[in-house]
Each structure stands twice: as C-alpha cells, then as structure tokens.
C-alpha cells in the first residue's frame, strides 16, 4: 500500500482543522468569510475521499458557493454601515470589538484545553467503536428493485424516506417566508445591464458559466435516477447560476411580492404533497408510490424540487442582505428598518402602526 492516500488524507484533515481554527479565531470578518469558503471546498475534497460523490457536489455548490455568497453579501452590508463613521462608532461591525470579545491569553488557553479534552474524548469514542457489518445498505439493496430508481441515494431520498425530503422542502419554504418577513426584498442588485461594459469579466463569465450550469442542472436531475446526481445538487447549481445572473445584473431580482416567484417557490411542496395524496388513495399509504409508477413520480417530484430549490436559494440570497436604510426608496416606506413598517418619531415613540401592536 502506497503512502500517497495517507498523505492526501492527512493534508485535507490538517487543512480542515487549521481553517476551522483560524476562521473562528480571526478578528476580521472578511477573512473569516473567505476562509469559510475555502473550508467548504476542502470539505468537498474530504467527501470525495470518503466515497460520497453526491455530497462533494452539494458541498461545493451549497456549502462553499451559496453559503459563501450569503456571508459575503451580509458582510458587505455591515461594512457599508461603517462607512463615513468614526472608528469608535463602527467598531464591532466587521472587525471585532476588542472590548466585547476580549479574552485573556490564559483564559483562551484554558478554554482550548477544555474543548480539546472534549474533542479528544469524542474522537476516542468514535475511533474505538466496534467494527460491524453494514446493515442499512443491505436493506436498501434488497428493496432497490422496487424503488423505481437504481441510484440508492435517490431511492432513499425520494422513496424509502420521502417524508424527510417532503419536510425538508417545508423547511426551505419556511426559511424563505421567514426571510421575506424580515424585509421587503432588496433592490440592491437592480443594476442596469448596460453598465456591464465596465465589468467585462463578470459579463463574459456569466455568459459562459450560466448556460453550462443550466445544462448541467438538467443533466444532474435526469441522471440522479441511476447515478451520482439528483434534485439537490441540480437545484444548487441552478441557484448558483441564478445568483450570478442577479449579481451581474442580467436578471432583475424578483421580490417577495411577485406571484410568479411565490408559485415557483412552493411548486415542489405542492407537487410532492399531491403525489403523496394520490398514492394515499391508490395504495392506502401516504407517499407509498403505486407499483409501476415509481420512476415517473420520482422524476416528476425531482424536477419540481430542482426548480423550487433553485428559486428559494436565489430568493434567500437576494433578500437576506437587504438593510432598508441603504435604499432611499425603501427608506420612505420603512424609515426605521422596522419589518412591520412602523414609523418612529424623534423621541422614540411610534407614530404610525402602533395601534396594531
């Protein structure tokens, strides 16, 4: 056995630990954000080494890509709050306020000691777990013939444990509604496409990458039935393309008010529930697909999932960072940054909207 895999795994493991330590220890938010993206990419290498290609795809697109974009965006909003203010006023926004986050070196050392002990104990328990034969994969293999798809992961996600996936899309829709209720949607990205001439790289890159990403998303949705791929990875890729389109100004960000966005966002939830109800009447069990129709139904749900996941993720990206005070148009509507649209008078009392309290 050659030493190469050992070296590779060792480097990836050390990188993961080192990046995690540094990004939580640094006092500069921008550095932490960039390191977090690097952590996500390194983690996707670890997934490849662990034989989990589906996770590597999802991690690279979601964990590193979309989450990184979310953090960078939020960072920028915080940084903008600090513009034009004194160091004292803006301290604690994007650079840690030492008075708040200050820890003496002795205390830091002690806390790392304690946490190190806990981590060591956890690692010891995990490493000394008795070896056993696979149980679940055998069950999955035995039932795979009736699942309608030959990719075991897709079979688990959309057939054996379809409830999980149904509830997951509920979580996504809930997050979207939650983010919408925090503000009214950003106009920050409403950039004039004509301005793209100033940014040749962004424009050219989007023109190249977006069609490719769209094609790959369709391919991944289709191939998920029998090989690596599936709705999550495809939706994540499509969302990445959407984020690029919005950031480059090719696509106007749709706000929560757009009925079309709402419809696409809940599409998967509706389709999934209808499929579940149909199978309830057909076979007597919720989400127990009628024999023979499994493949078609799974493909239908996967397609809807891809669309909805992509739309929801783009919405989360567009809506999260909005701070109304940055936008003169929204400031009139929402001068206090209050999600309920209440207006605060100079002495701090509510002028409008207080009756609803």
């Amino acid at each position, binding site marked *: 056995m050659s030493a190469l895999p050992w070296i590779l795994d060792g480097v990836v493991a050390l990188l993961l630990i080192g990046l995690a330590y540094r990004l*939580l220890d640094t006092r500069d938010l921008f550095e932490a954000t960039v390191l977090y993206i690097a952590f996500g990419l390194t983690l996707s290498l670890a997934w490849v080494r*662990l034989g989990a290609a589906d996770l590597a795809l999802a991690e690279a697109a979601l964990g590193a890509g979309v989450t990184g974009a979310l953090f960078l965006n939020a960072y920028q909003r915080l940084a903008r709050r600090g513009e034009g203010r004194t160091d004292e006023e803006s301290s*604690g926004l994007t650079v840690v306020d030492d008075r708040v986050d200050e820890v003496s070196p002795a205390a830091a050392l002690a806390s790392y000691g304690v946490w190190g002990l806990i981590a060591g104990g956890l690692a010891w328990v995990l490493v000394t777990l008795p070896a056993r034969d696979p149980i679940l994969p055998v069950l999955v293999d035995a039932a795979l013939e009736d699942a309608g798809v030959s990719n075991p992961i897709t079979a688990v996600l959309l057939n054996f444990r379809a409830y999980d996936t149904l509830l997951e899309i509920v979580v996504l829709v809930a997050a979207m509604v939650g983010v919408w209720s925090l503000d009214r949607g950003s106009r920050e990205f409403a950039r004039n496409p004509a301005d793209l001439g100033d940014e040749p790289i962004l424009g050219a890159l989007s023109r190249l990458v977006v069609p490719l990403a769209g094609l790959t998303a369709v391919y991944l949705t289709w191939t998920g039935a029998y090989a690596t791929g599936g709705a999550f990875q495809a939706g994540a890729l499509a969302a990445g393309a959407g984020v690029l389109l919005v950031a480059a100004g090719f696509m106007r960000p749709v706000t929560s008010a757009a009925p079309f966005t709402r419809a696409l966002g809940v599409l998967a939830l509706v389709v999934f529930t209808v499929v579940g109800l149909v199978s309830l009447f057909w076979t007597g069990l919720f989400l127990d697909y009628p024999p023979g129709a499994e493949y078609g139904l799974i493909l239908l749900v996967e397609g809807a999932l891809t669309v909805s996941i992509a739309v929801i993720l783009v919405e989360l990206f567009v809506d*999260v960072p909005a701070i109304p005070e940055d936008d003169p148009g929204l400031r009139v509507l929402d001068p206090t940054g209050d999600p309920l649209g209440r207006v605060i008078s100079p002495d701090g009392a509510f002028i409008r909207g207080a009756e609803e309290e």
Partner: protein
Amino acid sequence: MSTDLIYLVTGAGVSMLGFRGFVTRAHLFWKILGINLMGSGIFLILIAAPPRLPGGEADPVPQAMVLTGIVVALSATALALGVALRVAVRTGRPYLEEEAGDPVDHPTAASEIRREME
C-alpha cells in the same frame, strides 16, 4: 478504513472548534459560522462512522441524511444572517444585548432619522 479514522478524528475536532466558537464569540456572524462548522464536523462523523460498501462508496442512508442536512443548514444560515443584520440595524451592532457591553452610543436607524430631522 484508515481514511475513515482520519476523518472521524477531524470531524470531532471541527465540530468542537465550531461549538467553542459559537459559545465564546460574541459577534453574531461568528456564532453563525461556528454553528455551521459544528454541523460540518458532525456530517463528517455521520459519513465516516458507518462501514463502507464493498465498492468503496459511503453508506447511502447517511449520505441522503447529510445531503438533506446541508440544504437545511443553508436555509437556516440564510434566516439567521437576516435576523443578525436586523439586530445590527435596530441596535447599531451585530451583538446580542446581554453580550454587547456597550460603552459607546452606536448609531441606529432610529437615532439617525432623529439626527436628520433635527
């Protein structure tokens, strides 16, 4: 097998580093980063702990669970960032009230409107 062991230990280390960051850092963004890292470490443990299939692939059941987990973690992160930014707008700083220890009068959205109106 050895690969799995390395990543088991890594998962334990990363999740505890994340947990420590979540507990000890006051800035809300670092708390969110910490929770995310904690989740990533636990995902690593979930995939590395069960025995592999004969072909070398990871167990499909935890893979499906982690895939779900990555997406749920992302949506929770988005919501948490939205809330953290809202806290920053209302109080002037991205800190929880009890942890802020605020000696300076930081400008909030309301106080700025006040200043403009005067």
